[in-house]
């Protein structure tokens, strides 16, 4: 019976103690604790949001950087291409010039040769003339017995004549 009969004393002390602990903890413990937890949760949420925001920004930044890089690469390629073109142009020009020069030199050489050849031919002609004259002189000077001998001599003489 004692087990299931609530005692007045314990009820009294329990009422007082529990009211007191409810008041004291409500004021000095649960208030600050709940407020602290709530505040921290808010802070964490905000921090997470900010982190997400930062991530997004970073992605954007990264995309921008990539774009920049790509542009730079394109520009570099363009520059390279231009440089190559310029180089080729210069080379072509140089080659042309060289060819031209070579052609000119060749032309000159040819002209010289022609000139020399003409000179040589002229010279030869002159020599032939003089030789012919000599031969003629010799022919005239020496009486040939027969026509056959004469012809042989002419042949012989002609053989001696060397065009240089």
């Amino acid at each position, binding site marked *: 019976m004692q087990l299931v009969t609530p005692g007045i004393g314990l009820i009294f002390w329990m009422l007082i103690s*529990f009211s007191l602990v409810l008041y004291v903890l409500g004021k000095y413990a649960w208030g600050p604790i709940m407020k602290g937890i709530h505040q921290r949760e808010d802070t964490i949420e905000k921090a997470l949001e900010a982190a997400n925001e930062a991530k997004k920004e970073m992605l954007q930044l990264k995309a921008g950087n990539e774009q920049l890089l790509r542009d730079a690469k394109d520009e570099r390629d363009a520059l390279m291409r231009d440089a190559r073109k310029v180089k080729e142009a210069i080379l072509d020009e140089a080659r042309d010039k060289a060819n031209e020069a070579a052609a000119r030199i060749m032309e000159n050489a040819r002209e010289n040769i022609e000139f020399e050849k003409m000179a040589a031919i002229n010279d030869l002609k002159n020599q032939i003339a003089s030789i012919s004259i000599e031969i003629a002189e010799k022919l005239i000077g020496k009486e040939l017995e027969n026509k056959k001998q004469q012809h042989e001599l002419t042949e012989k003489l002609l053989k001696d004549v060397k065009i240089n």
Partner: protein
Amino acid sequence: MNRGIISLKLSNIAFKFENRLMIRKLLHTARLQVVLIALLLSGFTYGNTATHDMVTSPSVPAHEQTEKKAFDAGKMIIDHIVDAHEWHILTYNDFHLSIPLPVIILDKGKLVSFSSGHFHHGHEAYRGYRLMTEGVNEGKIVKTLEDGETADESAKLPLDFSITKNVLSLFISVLLLCLIFISIGNKYKKNPNTAPKGLQSVLEPLILFVRDDIAIPGLGKKNYARFMPFLLTVFWFIFLNNLLGLIPVFPGGANLTGNIAVTMVLALFTFAITTYNGNKGYWKHIVNAPGVPWWLKIPIPLMPIVEIVGLITKPFVLMVRLFANMTAGHIILLGFMSLIFIFGNMNIVAGYGVSIFSIAFGVFMSLLELLVAFIQAYVFALLSSIYFGMAMEEHEHTEEHTTEH
């Protein structure tokens, strides 16, 4: 008045030893370790005892020494579960270690207070009062007849506001609650927005548990904040006292949450808050439930009666559930321990043999009780929050019920 009670309490927390010689002798016995562990566990050091005044117990009455009482398991269990005017710690042969607690009696408007040590465990009367050890008034303080010795069966019982074992345990737990949670509260105040450290990090998950799994499901996100202080207090009060009840020695071991007076007050708080917060819809459902055939209300108000009974059964169930669960756990544990002595009285070998099983089951039950300690605190807080939520529920469907009829 209050200050007087507190100083009385402090001055009277003394220990009862037969005498100092007895302690010396005890220390030399083979059971030295058992006693020492008991003393250490109960928070008394040897040095401490000197600072408290020693109350010499009277010589034990002759009849008790001659006839050794047979072990009564039922009586032992009940004695351990119910309230007491002294905090008994251990008995070894004729040696009693117990803390006498202050007795405060309101008798015909007159306040009487003295140490319960004067009763000598109910063997003696003091100032016209006697502590009954048997009969209907067992464990209660009764008035004596003119001779100052025999109990007056016909007299009305004086109102007993004594600082009993449970009351002292209540004070200790309240003090502990305040110490723990105010210190934690200060931590939140001092370092806001930092990760919890130490005790704070142990208790915070449970505080969040009360918020997220007890308050918010029962009350909704809109209303829960207002009830958090009560729900947290009730949860931690029950949980801490359940745990303290599992510690077998001082300052634990008082079956506080297994006491019907305590659970009654807790349930009354829930009932009072529910009633205070009941909105129009809540009262309408009780007095004139919508959607119920009229002949259930007139001429015999059957539904209102059922509803009003339901109003009372809710806190009643809260009270009984906690009380019965905690008491049952204690009874089972004590029952296992009693088995050792019941068998030991028959045969010493049987006693030791049974002790193995008793201890194994005792350990198992203790672990189970740890779970129960938490579950009961959870259930009490959860049901409270659900009752509050029901009282504050918005009844949008009321209109459609009334138009039906």
